[in-house]
């Protein structure tokens, strides 16, 4: 028994070392850094108590970034998941050009976001951008979606949905293919129509996938900011500042490392709570086979 325990620990040790060095250690140091000032040149870091947290509560850009992020999550999570499911159902059936369609849906996932963001900038250009050219065909006027405070966040959210839906589709597609045909045939024999089959058979069997995709979608809503960097830089006037982007700005442009650590800590706590909640709450509704 003792030998077994020792062996177990020995086997776990390499992974544990890596986790301590690259995950838990930095987390601890980050949390510690939030109680000190940022060192500048010859001025070393000083103990600051909860000053950084007080600054955070008084920082209007933090609150705006949080509000933006919640709206961004509220837009991108349901939209990308819904679209993914629709696309998966579409390319699951037998149809001509199915392989091509699957590839087309999946392509955005393969492209690096920072590169496609550069192309999206041109789609959104007022007057000569793709979107305005299409609008022009219907006699509609020019728009400046990225350049207006009230539309910019929606414009960058659309790019995220476009990017993510194809990725989530793959999971739904795999889940759909794993559903035994016999269940669907049985339902059909009972006289169920397509909608009933979806609601009573397919959807319940997809719930484990939905939970997995939802957790990923939530994480991505707080993590995926490459296109913000490229397309708006958080502007105009912080209209597209998301928490993670703001954190990058504070940490690596303003070099206020103590405040960046504070933002990180808050972000980690919020994300941790959300995912714990997700598992506890949704787990009960998930139908595992």
């Amino acid at each position: 028994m003792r030998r077994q325990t020792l062996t177990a620990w020995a086997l776990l040790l390499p992974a544990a070392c890596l986790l301590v060095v690259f995950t838990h250690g930095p987390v601890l140091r980050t949390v510690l850094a939030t109680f000190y000032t940022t060192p500048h040149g010859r001025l070393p870091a000083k103990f600051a108590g909860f000053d950084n947290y007080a600054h955070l509560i008084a920082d209007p850009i933090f609150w705006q970034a949080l509000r933006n992020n919640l709206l961004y999550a509220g837009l991108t999570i349901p939209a990308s998941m819904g679209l993914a499911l629709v696309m998966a159902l579409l390319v699951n059936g037998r149809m001509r050009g199915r392989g091509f369609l699957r590839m087309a849906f999946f392509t955005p996932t393969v492209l690096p976001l920072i590169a496609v963001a550069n192309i999206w900038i041109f789609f959104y250009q007022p007057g000569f951008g793709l979107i305005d050219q299409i609008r022009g065909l219907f006699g509609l006027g020019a728009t400046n979606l990225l350049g207006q405070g009230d539309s910019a966040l929606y414009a960058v959210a659309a790019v995220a949905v476009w990017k993510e839906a194809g990725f989530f589709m793959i999971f739904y597609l795999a889940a759909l293919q794993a559903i035994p045909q016999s269940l669907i045939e049985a339902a059909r024999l009972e006289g169920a129509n397509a909608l009933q089959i979806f609601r009573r058979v397919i959807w319940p069997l997809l719930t484990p996938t939905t939970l997995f995709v939802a957790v990923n979608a939530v994480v991505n809503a707080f993590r995926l900011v490459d296109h913000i960097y490229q397309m708006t830089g958080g502007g105009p006037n912080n209209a597209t500042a998301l928490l993670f982007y703001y954190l990058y700005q504070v940490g690596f442009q303003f070099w206020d490392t103590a405040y960046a650590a504070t933002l990180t800590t808050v972000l980690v706590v919020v994300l941790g709570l959300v995912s714990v909640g997700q598992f506890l709450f949704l787990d009960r509704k998930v139908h595992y086979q």
Partner: protein
Amino acid sequence: MTMSYLRGLTLGAAATLALCAAPALALDLQFYFPVAVGGGAAKTIGELTDAYMAQHPDVKIEPVYTGSYVDTIAKAMTAAKGGNPPQLAVIGAAEMFNLIGEDVIAPFDDYVSDADKAAWFGGFYPAFMENSQAFGKTWGIPFQRSTPVMYWNKEAFRKAGLDPEHAPASWDEMVEMARKLTVKDASGQVTQWGVRIPTAGLPYWLYQGVAIANDAILASADGKTTAFNSPEAIEAAQKLVDLTTAQGVMEKGTLDWGATPKAFFEGNAAMIWTTTGNLTNITQNAPFPFGVAFLPAIKHFGAPTGGGNFYLFKDSTDEEKKASVDFVKWMTAPEQAAKWTMATGYVAPRAEDWDTPALKDYVAKVPGALVAREQLQYAKAELTVYQNAQITQILNSALEAIMTGQAEPKAALDEAQAKADAILKAYR
């Protein structure tokens, strides 16, 4: 068999000796550089350093491409804070006080003779030295420096009944011409805007093209005080937003910086403001004849300078610093400066550079290149303060709020000034 074995051994020993000897003789220098314009900038840097090493076998220089300006300062700062900085780096001129404040750079003065100080430092255009010198020392050597200019579409001018060879010289004239250049279709939709001054992302730079011409200097020379809400600064912001509202000659909202040359090529805007660094791009891609002009005068002509300087990092030996200074001196000598200007479109930073046969030929072919140089006499340093990135971001947000109609110029700039004061207070 034994012969070839012996020969192999001798060769091997010789190679080992050579390998051991090389690092002992040569001085290793690492040099970070950003690329902010298209074209062959990185290739030219490689060619220039190779040429220098061929002439100086005792020095080995490793140029490291470090991304954009923002990436480069981030990498250099991280390396310096980790105790392993490069010996040299090209970083934004506006970062001078930031680098001094973080105590990571050394002034060039200690490694340059008095005679050289006068001849070398004194040979750069004064506008470029404004944010290269502070506290009586020289902290940056101008290298890839730029300034914004106005490009105009001669064909659009002709169609609008304007003289295609005459660019607007004053702000009022620009507005007047822009009115004539703004074209609407039958349904009242604008198909061509009179002017495009991009204000998304980094509006502070082109805004200073208006502010400096209106006598508004945004920062004190010591980098510790800003003047965002002076009456002249507020008036300059009002002029900028009026283009999109009262005068209706520019698209409403903020406009993307990178897409601006494209808007010009597509005929979406008849006049654009952008960096002289875009000259090569526009020369190659504009499907119509175009002109290059000064930014229009308000009280007088005016423009900010921009771009990057060479900085010397503190955490290196005296020997390395001397070798670095030698290299920088060579890089900024007329022959190299001419090569660099022709490859990139940056403004050669010394008067003598323009006397080289290479640049004389270039100017004969691309007369627009001269406009930027001529404008330098009216140019002032771009916003350069302590905590530069943060202060710039505050001004950017205020300007974006103004351009998108979320705030009045005075209210937005008052708030920006208060925020900047709160941060810079610590440095006074």
